[in-house]
């Protein structure tokens, strides 16, 4: 459904600019309805071109035209005031909209101010509502603030203006703009992501996947390491407890063994002592047995009884034989010597007597007690040895048993296992550190272990990949969209051109019923049927017919502002243009000069009753000023007069003012 968009100019106000200071209103009475046709008569030199540029600037937001001319050039001649302004009041879709242009001639700057009744009040800058921005721009404004030169361009093959105006007014150009935007956006995406080819995208994808795979792998490895670490720590704790328990238990056993070994050493020492004592006793025959003791004593006693050895040794008789006389006093004759010699052989020698006396000394004392003591002592010692032997055996057995309970082999194995686990735990800790490190010395992603570094790298690569993915996806979508838009554009333009051709021809027929000039179609220009040339009047008529059809077709109800609408047209054809003008737009504002009235105003008045007649001129000709003061309505400013009066309008004859 076509939406109606309407814009009316309610008036404008100029101050301290090249045109006379004035304030003009196109309103009918107090409400916001404006006159359908306003004729603003301004003699040449009054500042019409200035006013025209101000109006185009105010309705396009483009101050380039002012800046190109030089801001100071817009200052009223002779004025000492460095400030100037131009203020246009508009009615956009029923809401008040005001655009101000403020001049600062001292600094050479201009500023826009915008006031919109549905907006935020007066704001600096050119900020009409977004819907109005469609036509309040430099491209669009020149079609409703109509430049006469444009009419000729519509029919020139080389100008390409016709399609352009259709694109602008129908806003089909937006489709191209979308295409351009898509291209620019894609380029921005490419610039942003740095990838423009499929290979580049695939590289990004691979790089992202590589980082993702590596990170996942490292996370799994870390998980395994952490699990191993936990298991190792638990095992170590268990082994430590076992080792401690073992040491505690073994400590008791070892202490027991040490005690027993000490006891055994004592028993051994005791045994040695007993053995010596036993040996000492057992090597004494009288201690061995009572019978032995009795035998020894019996032998000794026997010798005593036998008076052995004798008191006189054999040596006494040997010496006696050599004496002259015997001890009895008788002379020692041969018979006596033979008898003594015979007897002396029966006697023992003195040396053997000594031996026998020593043997006799071994005789034990008469009291048996001594023997009993020795024998008892031997028996006691042997008894003690027996006890000692039993004790030593028991002690040794106990030591052996206790030693057997010492499982040193298992303990060594346990300690070895614990040591191995400690080494493993240390290795795991070192490995885990690599995964938990903030930095990583690795030169490529595959050799990187740090999870943080990998996550950071993955994030970066993911971002790059997504950007390139987005760009890739966008390229595909944008190509499709561009194709669709191009097709839509071509189809819409064809349809619009066909419809506008029909409408335009209908209007041309209305304006020029006796003229067979028609347009055959719309290409880059308005293609005329079977006719190669046309007059200026025909060109203007065709242009008006074309624009009117276009505005209506596109649902725009905009003011149509024309400078000298009838000036280039032959007198006989001005009437037809005048008939067309009321149909061009809801509001038609024409800048005219007195010479245009002929043939145009008559026809215009016949076709439209709501015409506003305005005359703006400098108040430097007293006779005119005086006459103006008798007009129906007038406003006088310091340097000009604005008269609203049909008669005055008709009678005004000045074509050019002399400054």
């Amino acid at each position, binding site marked *: 459904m076509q939406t109606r968009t309407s814009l009316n100019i309610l008036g404008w106000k100029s101050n301290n600019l090249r045109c006379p200071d004035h304030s003009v209103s196109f309103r009918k009475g107090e409400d916001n309805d404006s006159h359908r046709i306003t004729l603003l008569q301004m003699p040449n030199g009054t500042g019409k071109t200035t006013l025209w540029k101000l109006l185009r600037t105010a309705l396009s937001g483009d101050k380039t035209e002012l800046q190109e001319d030089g801001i100071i050039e817009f200052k009223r001649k002779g004025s000492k005031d460095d400030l100037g302004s131009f203020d246009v009041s508009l009615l956009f879709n029923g809401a008040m909209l005001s655009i101000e242009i403020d001049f600062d001639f001292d600094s050479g700057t201009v500023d826009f101010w915008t006031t919109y009744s549905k907006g935020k009040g007066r704001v600096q800058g050119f900020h009409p509502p977004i819907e109005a921005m469609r036509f309040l721009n430099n491209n669009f404004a020149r079609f409703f603030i109509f430049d006469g030169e444009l009419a000729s361009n519509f029919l020139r093959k080389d100008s390409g203006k016709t399609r352009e105006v259709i694109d602008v007014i129908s806003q089909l150009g937006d489709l191209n703009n979308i295409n351009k935007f898509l291209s620019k956006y894609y380029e921005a995406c490419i610039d942003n992501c740095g990838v423009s080819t499929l290979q580049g995208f695939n590289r990004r994808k691979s790089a992202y996947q590589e980082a993702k795979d590596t990170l996942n792998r490292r996370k799994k490895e870390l998980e395994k390491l952490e699990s191993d670490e936990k298991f190792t720590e638990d095992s170590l704790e268990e082994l430590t407890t076992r080792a401690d328990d073992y040491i505690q238990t073994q400590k008791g056993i070892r202490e027991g063994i040490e005690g027993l070994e000490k006891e055994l050493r004592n028993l051994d020492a005791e045994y040695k002592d007993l053995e010596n004592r036993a040996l000492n006793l057992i090597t004494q*025959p009288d201690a*061995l047995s009572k019978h032995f003791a009795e*035998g020894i004593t019996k032998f000794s006693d026997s010798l005593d009884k036998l*008076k*052995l050895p004798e008191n006189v040794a054999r040596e006494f008789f040997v010496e006696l034989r050599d004496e002259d006389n015997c001890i009895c006093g008788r002379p020692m004759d041969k018979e006596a010597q033979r008898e003594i010699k015979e007897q002396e052989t029966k006697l023992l020698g003195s040396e*053997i007597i000594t031996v026998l006396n*020593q*043997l006799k000394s*071994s*005789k034990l004392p008469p009291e048996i007690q001594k023997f009993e003591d020795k024998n008892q002592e031997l028996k006691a010692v042997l008894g003690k040895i027996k006890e000692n032997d039993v004790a030593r055996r028991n002690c040794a057995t106990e030591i052996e048993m206790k030693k057997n309970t010492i499982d040193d082999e298992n303990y060594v194995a346990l300690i070895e296992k614990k040591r191995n686990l400690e080494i493993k735990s240390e290795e795991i800790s070192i490995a885990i550190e690599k995964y938990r490190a903030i930095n990583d010395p690795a030169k490529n992603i595959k050799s990187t272990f740090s999870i943080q570094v990998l996550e950071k790298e993955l994030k970066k690569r993911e971002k790059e990949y997504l950007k390139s993915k987005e760009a890739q996806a966008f390229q595909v979508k944008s190509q499709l969209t561009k194709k669709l838009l191009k097709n839509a554009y071509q189809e819409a333009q064809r349809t619009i051109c066909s419809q506008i051709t029909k409408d335009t021809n209908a209007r041309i027929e209305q304006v020029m019923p006796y003229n067979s000039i028609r347009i055959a179609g719309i290409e880059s220009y308005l293609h005329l049927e079977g006719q190669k040339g046309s007059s200026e009047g025909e060109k203007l008529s065709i242009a008006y017919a074309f624009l009117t059809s276009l505005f209506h077709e596109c649902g725009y109800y905009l003011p149509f502002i024309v400078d000298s609408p009838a000036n280039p047209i032959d007198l006989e054809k001005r009437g037809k243009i005048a008939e067309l003008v009321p149909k061009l737009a809801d509001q038609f504002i024409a800048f005219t000069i007195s010479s245009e009235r002929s043939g145009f105003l008559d026809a215009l008045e016949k076709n439209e009753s709501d015409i506003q007649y305005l005359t703006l001129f400098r108040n430097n000709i007293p006779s005119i000023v005086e006459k103006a003061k008798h007009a129906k309505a007038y406003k006088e400013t310091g340097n000009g007069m604005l008269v609203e009066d049909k008669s005055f309008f008709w009678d005004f004859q000045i074509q050019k003012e002399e400054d």
Partner: protein
Amino acid sequence: MADRFHAPVESRDWFKKLGFSIRMYDYYFCLMIGLAKKRKAPDDEMVNSEEFVEYFPEPFGSGKSKIISLFLETELSLLGIDLSNRKTVQKLLMEYITPNSLTWLTKKGISEMDKYCAGGFEILRDEFDDRPASKYAFFLNFERLISEALATTV
């Protein structure tokens, strides 16, 4: 050269495990058993003996008069000599005793004593199932054997 004591050759190994410091211990223990049992080895068995020392080494030196007295008393008894017969006793003493030997024994005296030793070793060897492995065990059995022997012979 002075006469030396002789002990059975086999007794060296038999007493080996007991590790007595001198061979005289082996000789003494055999002698005591021989005297207790009044058993002398015959002359032809004495060829299996070996000489080892020519005196009574310590700790036997100080008690040698008791050993000799016991030997003479046993010999007199075994020979059936009446201890009240001065002549026969003196004769035997003069045969067995000499001041010219460190052992106070004549060659004959040592030879006869060696026979008791050899006889005693035979008894020991018969009475012990195995060679004695410890002094303690040997002492106990030795003392028992002496007691049993004297209980029957006296």
